[in-house]
Each structure stands twice: as structure tokens, then as C-alpha cells.
């Protein structure tokens, strides 16, 4: 059994390692920056990449490499926390709906229908704007519109496992509804929910950075990739490195998590393996 599991998950190792590097960078960002990402040096403003500032400096002379490293903490922590909230709240609601059924289920599913009827970014832009911007509010806007997808998935999964014999057996052994949810429903729907979440990391990072880029997320001087790109927009012609540094950082991070998500899905889905 163990060797089989090992073989199945072995293709994940390099991608897990890459994602691990990104995460470690984010966690230890304050110790990795060569300079203070917030210290201005107006004399050295907008210098192109050189030996001292490997990625150049922005218009306040702040070291871009340091800001990109620091930004990984802001962007990644916010995105992953947001995803955790959406996925767990959504699956919680979905599992309860699927398990209980009845009026609660009808009400919550109609509500999720309404949220799903909004184009996600249109809603998020307006909601973040109404809440007044800021990284927390931008994340809140994305959370409000993001949970129904997970509720849908979790509900569908719960409905298929509800009638399984082991569920029947647990019920007959006297397990209450709460116990059923905690010890039987959640463990059994966790896999597919995790796969969906892994595939979503990249999208969430891009959406949150997009809101910051529009000025609705992280506010200056916070080192955040989307906000940094917004800052460099007007100097595109004279100082392209100001947007290239955070832009490439977003691209590489999203690419790594997208690859990881694909590989996790392949590993979890035996049908894919045969191809």
C-alpha cells in the first residue's frame, strides 16, 4: 500500500519542492531581503538592474528585489488565507446542505445560485470598491463571491456518499449528525475539495493582485506585487524593470502552483494515469 502511494505521488515531489521554495521565501521574507524594502533613496531612483540592485530600483529608489521578496509574503499569505477561508467555509456549508437537505439546503443553494450568477471579478471590483479598498477588503470581496463554488462541489460529493453503506452503518451505530459530518462526511469529501483548491491557488493570486493593480487592494507603500505593478505603470517606457520584476514574480508563482495543481489532480484521479 505504502509503496503504491509512493509511486502515485512521486511525480509531485519536484513541484512540491518548488512550491516549498516559494512558501519558504514568503515566510522568511524579512530575513532574505538584501535591503530594507521600504527605505527610500531618491538619488538612486529608477536605476536599471545592476550589481548592487539586482532587479533595479523603483521611483523612490527602493530596491526592487527586496520589494519582490517582501511582496511574496503579502501576496501569498493573503491569497492562501483567502483560499483557506473560501474552501473551508464553502465545503462546510455544502456538506451541511447535502447531508441535511430540506429547506436549509434549498435556501442556501438558491443563495449560491445568485452569487454564481455574478461575473466574479465584476462583483469583486465593485464590492472591494464599496468597502473602500485595502488588502483585507479586497480579500473579503473575493471571499464573498468565492465560497459558493466550494459549497456546490461539497454538496454534490456529500449527496453521493450519503447513501453509501458505511454511512448507513455509522448512522445505525448511533452516530449523531455532528459526528457524521466530522468523522465521515468531511474526511471523504476532503480529497476532491483539496484538488479544486490546489487548482484555484493561481487564479486567486492573480485576482487579488489584479484588485491591487486597480488600486482596490494593497495600498502603497505596502510591498505587494499587484500594487507594485500599478506603481510602475506610468514609467513603462523609461523603466520597464519596475513592472517586469513583480510581473515575473506573479507569473512564476502562478505557474508553479498551476503545475502543482495539475499534478495533484493527475495523482488523485486514477483515470488520468492510464492515458
Amino acid at each position, binding site marked *: 500500500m505504502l509503496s503504491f502511494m509512493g509511486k502515485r505521488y512521486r511525480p509531485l515531489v519536484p513541484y512540491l519542492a518548488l512550491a516549498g521554495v516559494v512558501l519558504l521565501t514568503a515566510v522568511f521574507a524579512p530575513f532574505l531581503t538584501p535591503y530594507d524594502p521600504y527605505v527610500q533613496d531618491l538619488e538612486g531612483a529608477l536605476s536599471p538592474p545592476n550589481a548592487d540592485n539586482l532587479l533595479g530600483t523603483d521611483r523612490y529608489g527602493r530596491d526592487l528585489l527586496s520589494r519582490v521578496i517582501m511582496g511574496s509574503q503579502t501576496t501569498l499569505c493573503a491569497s492562501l488565507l483567502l483560499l483557506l477561508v473560501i474552501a473551508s467555509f464553502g465545503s462546510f456549508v455544502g456538506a451541511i446542505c447535502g447531508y441535511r437537505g430540506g429547506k436549509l439546503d434549498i435556501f442556501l443553494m438558491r443563495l449560491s445560485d445568485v452569487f454564481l450568477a455574478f461575473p*466574479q471579478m465584476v462583483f469583486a471590483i465593485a464590492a472591494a470598491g464599496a468597502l473602500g479598498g485595502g488588502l483585507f477588503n479586497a480579500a473579503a470581496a473575493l471571499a464573498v463571491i468565492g465560497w459558493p463554488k466550494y459549497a456546490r462541489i461539497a454538496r454534490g460529493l456529500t449527496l453521493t456518499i450519503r447513501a453509501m453503506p458505511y454511512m448507513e452503518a455509522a448512522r445505525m451505530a448511533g452516530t449523531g449528525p455532528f459526528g457524521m459530518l466530522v468523522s465521515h462526511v468531511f474526511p471523504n469529501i476532503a480529497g476532491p475539495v483539496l484538488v479544486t483548491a490546489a487548482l484555484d491557488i493561481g487564479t486567486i493570486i492573480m485576482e487579488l493582485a489584479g484588485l491591487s493593480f486597480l488600486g482596490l487592494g494593497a495600498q502603497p507603500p505596502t510591498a505587494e506585487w499587484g500594487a507594485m505593478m500599478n506603481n510602475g505603470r506610468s514609467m513603462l517606457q523609461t523603466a520597464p524593470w519596475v513592472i517586469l520584476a513583480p510581473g515575473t514574480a506573479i507569473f512564476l508563482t502562478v*505557474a508553479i502552483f498551476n503545475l502543482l495543481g495539475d499534478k495533484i489532480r493527475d495523482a488523485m484521479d486514477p483515470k488520468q494515469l492510464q492515458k
Partner: protein
Amino acid sequence: MKSYVISRLMQLVPILIGITFLTFGMMQFTADDAVDIMYEQAGSVSEEVKAAKRAELGLDQPFLVQYGRWLAGVASGDMGRSYLSGKRVFEAFADKLPATVELMVVSILLTIFVATPLGILAAVYQNRWLDYVIRTFSFVGNSLPNFFVALLLIYFLALRLGLLPIMGRPGDWHSVVLPALTLTIAMGAKYTRQIRAVMLEELEKPYVMGARARGVREYTILTKSVLRSTLIVIITLLALSMGSLLGGTAIVETIFMWDGVGKMAVDAILTRDYPLIQAYVVWMSIIYVCVNLVADLAYHYLDPRVRSCGGES
């Protein structure tokens, strides 16, 4: 078919009520007072004048009454006036909508014409170098945020090579290229991937093997039989990607100064012009819902298997 259309239309009613309710409710979370924003430029205005204005706008009424009035306005095309310009919101929105529609239609057509052949080629040459090249491109396109794509295109195509104008002017085909290309790259990447997957599945089906066994040329099999199956995939993808396209236009229009509803909404948020934002969210969602409805009906029409389940009499 008729009964199916009617039942789908009936399902829209609660959704539309929900959309309008949430959009209206969302604006109640703002910390600003509408009347304060209106008189911001006018300097100091006495509280009586403000109170009179509030009463005139119905802002002193309970929430549900305000919502009811506003909803009646949405239905009749009267969504109030912009706080700043004083223009009627519905007209401001209708003025800008054609530019956004132009941008969307061009990007969708571009996406279909680029992604369909690429997806089919990748499937036909599965696991050969051409497949790897196409898959790499599609992967990269999928991992690039649209604002980065837009800035890269501006930098390389407009600033360095001077091929195309940066600023968008609706109606001029030169200026639609860059914003449309930006939207196409992300969408095309997804389409290529999906079309490839569906083609691979289709090419394994017995009828293809049968056709091959009878000596039908590979090209004929592709164009005459297999291509048809991609049509349904494209409709699914269109409906699915409409959501991100509608959101994407906001960012892309802002970057390219394309004078559409997306840019209008982002500007309105920065100036806290809430009636414009409400109109934007409500109408964008209605467009989204309608596109999904049309896609559902198209399925129904195109795919006999769906039709027989739908209760055709």
C-alpha cells in the same frame, strides 16, 4: 423545446431578484453618504439643503422601500443620475456599452480562430514536439495575469516596435488589436487546452477507428466528423469564459484607456460614484446570465442527447 425555454426563463426570475438585491445592498456597506459626495465640490452646504436633497432622492426611506424604487428604475431603464456628472446613469452606461461589446466580440472571434486549430493540431500530434510547443504556450498563457500581458504587449509591440497604438479608440481596428490580444491570450490558452482534451477523447471513439479502417483520409475524418464535436465544446467554453471576460474587460479597458463600461466602472469606484457602479454590476450580471441561458438553449438545440432528456414533446 418550448416548455424548456419557458421553464428556463422562469428560473431566471429569482436569480435576477437576487442579483439586484445584492448589488443594491452592497452599496449600503459604503462609508460615504451619497448627498455628501454630491456636494463635495460645492463647499459648505447647510444641513437643511442636504436633508431636502435626501428626501428628494428618497434616501430617508427604509432600505426595502429604497430597493423597491431602485428596482422599478432598473426595469424601466431609469437608474438615477451620476453623482458627479449628473448624467442619467442608464444613458451613460448605454453610451459606453458598444465599445465594450466590440472589444469582447473581437477577442472571442480571435480566440476561436486561434485556439481551435491549435487545439486540434495538438491533439492530432499528441506527445510529439508540436503538441509540446502548443501545450507550453497554453500553459504560459494560463499563468500570466492579464494586466501583466497588457503591459508586456504595450512595452514590446507599441513602445519598442511602434507597431500599434497604445491608447484605445473604439471603432478603429488598429487600437482594438492590443486590448483584444490581451484578453485573447488568457482565453485562448484555456480554449486550446480544452479543445485538445475533447479532440483526444473523440479521436479514440470507435467511429473514427471505423472510418480509418474503411480508408477514409485522416483529413476528411477531422473536418467531416470530429470537428463537429468541438462546436459544442466551444459553446460551453464561451459560456464559461464569459464571466472572466466581463471582469477582464474592466482591467484591460483601464490599462488601454478603452472607453467602455469597464473603465467607466473603475473610474466610478475611484470617484465613489455609486449609481454608476450599481448599473455596471447589475447589467454585467444580466448579460452574463443571458449568455448562459443562450448557451443552454443552444446545447439543447445542438445535442440530441440533451434534447431527449429535456422533455421534448
